[in-house]
């Protein structure tokens, strides 16, 4: 079993590395696919595994994007001047400046996002159910509006990010591998995390928080830690995405609550909540569907997407992986007694 698993992982990694060579023209789409996988995995960590359904995780994505932008630009120029430069002046970054900025920007984005999750955790994580969902959504919306009113960060005009030095394809491949590596690291990290005591603890919180607390679990600490892990990866992912898109803007690129913010939940539901593979499968499928409807249903693609969402949610609640687990439990290492009359 473990050999099969190791082999499967190896193949997955090989595919991830090889994709841009086999389909160089589709590199950007695959890049975004890894972003989607990352969004789904981070959401599932506290939505599926811990049972805390956040609607505002996009906050960390957007925060990471803006933090990284501020660091990258701030290392070389004055951020306020850079964003206010309507009248002229061309801001150049040398290769060295660019990559130092990128590395530092990503790091700061991840760390500050994680810290902000811990801080927000103080305030919000005591909320339960819909109140938590709406409360987190409120944070994301407020952040988008406030950044949109903040002239230093370009307000509604957004920021044009420094451009990736080198040939045009270098940027494409560069960002592809950044996204891929981050998603792969996150997957590995979560696989390990879920197998530890920490994984059991957050599952216990999901299943019955009162009892978990009664058993002596410091639920608050676990909840904050789990949210911080999500936020750390989301922050870096947002930073990469912002650089990849090249132009960031508060409401439609960074804090896009009703696009990516809801997609991440949907992808998890589609694949299967509370499983390790579910979010990955859901994200790949969702992204593929979106790309196809995008090309072939010009102008009506959103109608198709909306209907699809309704159908997924209403009829395929347990998700693909959940459905498979019901049909083929032995694939998941669950032993089932198939004798006549045997009950669970």
């Amino acid at each position, binding site marked *: 079993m473990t050999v099969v698993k190791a082999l499967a992982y190896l193949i997955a990694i090989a595919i991830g590395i090889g994709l841009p060579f086999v389909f*160089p*023209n*589709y*590199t*950007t*789409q695959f890049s*975004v696919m890894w972003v989607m996988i990352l969004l789904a995995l981070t959401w599932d960590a506290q939505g599926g595994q811990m049972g805390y359904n956040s609607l505002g995780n996009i906050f960390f994505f957007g925060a990471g994007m803006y933090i990284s932008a501020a660091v990258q630009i701030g290392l070389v120029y004055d951020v306020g001047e850079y964003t206010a*430069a*309507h*009248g*002229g*002046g*061309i801001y150049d970054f040398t290769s060295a400046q660019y990559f130092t900025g990128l590395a530092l920007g990503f790091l700061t984005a991840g760390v500050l996002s994680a810290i902000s999750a811990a801080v927000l955790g103080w305030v919000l994580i005591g909320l339960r159910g819909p109140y938590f969902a709406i409360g987190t959504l409120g944070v994301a919306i407020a952040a988008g*509006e406030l950044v*949109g*009113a903040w002239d230093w960060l370009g*307000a*509604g*005009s*957004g920021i*044009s990010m420094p*451009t990736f030095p080198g040939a*045009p394809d270098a*940027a*494409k491949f560069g960002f592809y591998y950044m996204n891929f590596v981050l998603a792969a690291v996150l997957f590995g990290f979560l696989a390990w995390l879920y197998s530890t005591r920490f994984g059991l603890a957050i599952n216990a919180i999901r299943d019955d928080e009162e009892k978990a607390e009664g058993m002596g679990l410091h639920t608050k600490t676990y909840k904050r830690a789990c949210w911080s892990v999500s936020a750390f990866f989301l922050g870096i992912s947002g930073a990469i*995405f912002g650089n990849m*898109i*090249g*132009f960031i*803007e508060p*409401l*439609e*690129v960074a804090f*896009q609550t009703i*696009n990516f913010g809801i997609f991440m939940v949907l992808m998890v539901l589609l694949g299967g909540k509370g499983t390790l593979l579910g979010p990955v499968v859901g994200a790949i499928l969702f992204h593929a569907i979106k790309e196809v409807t*995008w*090309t072939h249903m*010009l*102008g009506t*693609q*959103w109608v198709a997407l909306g209907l699809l969402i309704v159908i997924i949610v209403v009829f395929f609640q347990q998700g693909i992986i959940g459905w498979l687990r019901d049909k083929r439990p032995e694939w998941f290492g669950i032993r089932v007694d198939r004798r006549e009359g045997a009950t669970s």
Partner: protein
Amino acid sequence: MRKSVLTALAAGAIAFAGPAIAAECETITLGSAISLTGKYSTNGLHAKNGYEFAISKIKENGGVKMGDTCYNFEVIYYDDESTPARGAQLAERLIAQDGVQYMLGPYSSGLTKAIAPVTEKYQIPMVEAEGASRSLFNKGYKYLFAVLSTSEQYLATTVGLAAEVAEKEGKDPSAVRIAIAVENDPFSLDIRQGVLDDAAKFDMKIVIDDKLPRDLSDMSATLTKVRALKPDVLIVSGHSKGAATAVRQIEEQNVSVPMIAVTHCEAADVTGKFGDAANGILCSTQWAETLTYEDPIFGTAANYEQEFKSAYPEYAEKLVPYQTAQASAAVYVFKDAFERANSLDKDAVRDAISDTDLMTFYGGIRFAPEGNNIAKPMVLRQIQSGKYNVVAPSKFASHALEWPRP
């Protein structure tokens, strides 16, 4: 088999349609991400119609002639859903997967800001018609060309006009007080910057400086402030929905400011929707059908409007918005550049575009090294008894300014 049927049909069509040289032309494929859904979709559609109309007009006139062969344009469209994140991905897709070598622009400055880095990266020439923000033209882009005037010019004329009026009234221009309410997006913020710069020249005072939310359906708080502070000039910008909301609520709240200037009046069809309430409002426009520009393909500006209306009957009741005219002009720039370059090589085309010196129905087109059009001024129209009349700059003015606003 199928092919021969098609050829037979085509031959038949030619036989019936008479001298339709168009059918023999080859195809040049352009690409464009345009807003068909989302908040910019009205104007996205205006732009798309402009592109399509120009393409069919060029086809009627024998296509793009390069040596002995002729070409017709064809555009691959994608829907950018009015969001920059989508726009950048789509540009990448048009270039990498569809092999597009020449691009037409999207709608709005924000989308253009997202797409320009991509076309620049791949060195794909893009002629855009709907992204006016000045910040597009200070990045040193080499492959971006805009046929329209940059956005700081939209309402800056208003400031000059207000100064003129003040002097005529025997007041000092620095006594003029300005209220600004613009949508919080790249285009409108650039308009605001233009107004601020020009106001600073006259030392005028800005008394209100509000940024309106993007899903703007109520600006009564801002208008209450306007009524409290009684400025001499009110500037509003927020694409079509901003124009509609402003005109409606200005009337309803009885806001009496002697000079009110708004963008996107025609696109929002404020005269059709609000009738007399729109009277006296100043509207900035890139182009007006009453101007005396002319070219061999589209004829005069008036002719353009007439033919466009017969091709797209849904515009019959309103003014053809300038967004449509400038989109057509962008296609015309490509035609002209291809013919001069006499080559399909994208860099040759890029060089030809940068050498453009063209008179069109839309106005003169000549690009600065930064890519913006410097040969065409903005004009300011005032709605007078339901009609859009050009009042500034004085060179083009057909009517006198009505001041104060009724």
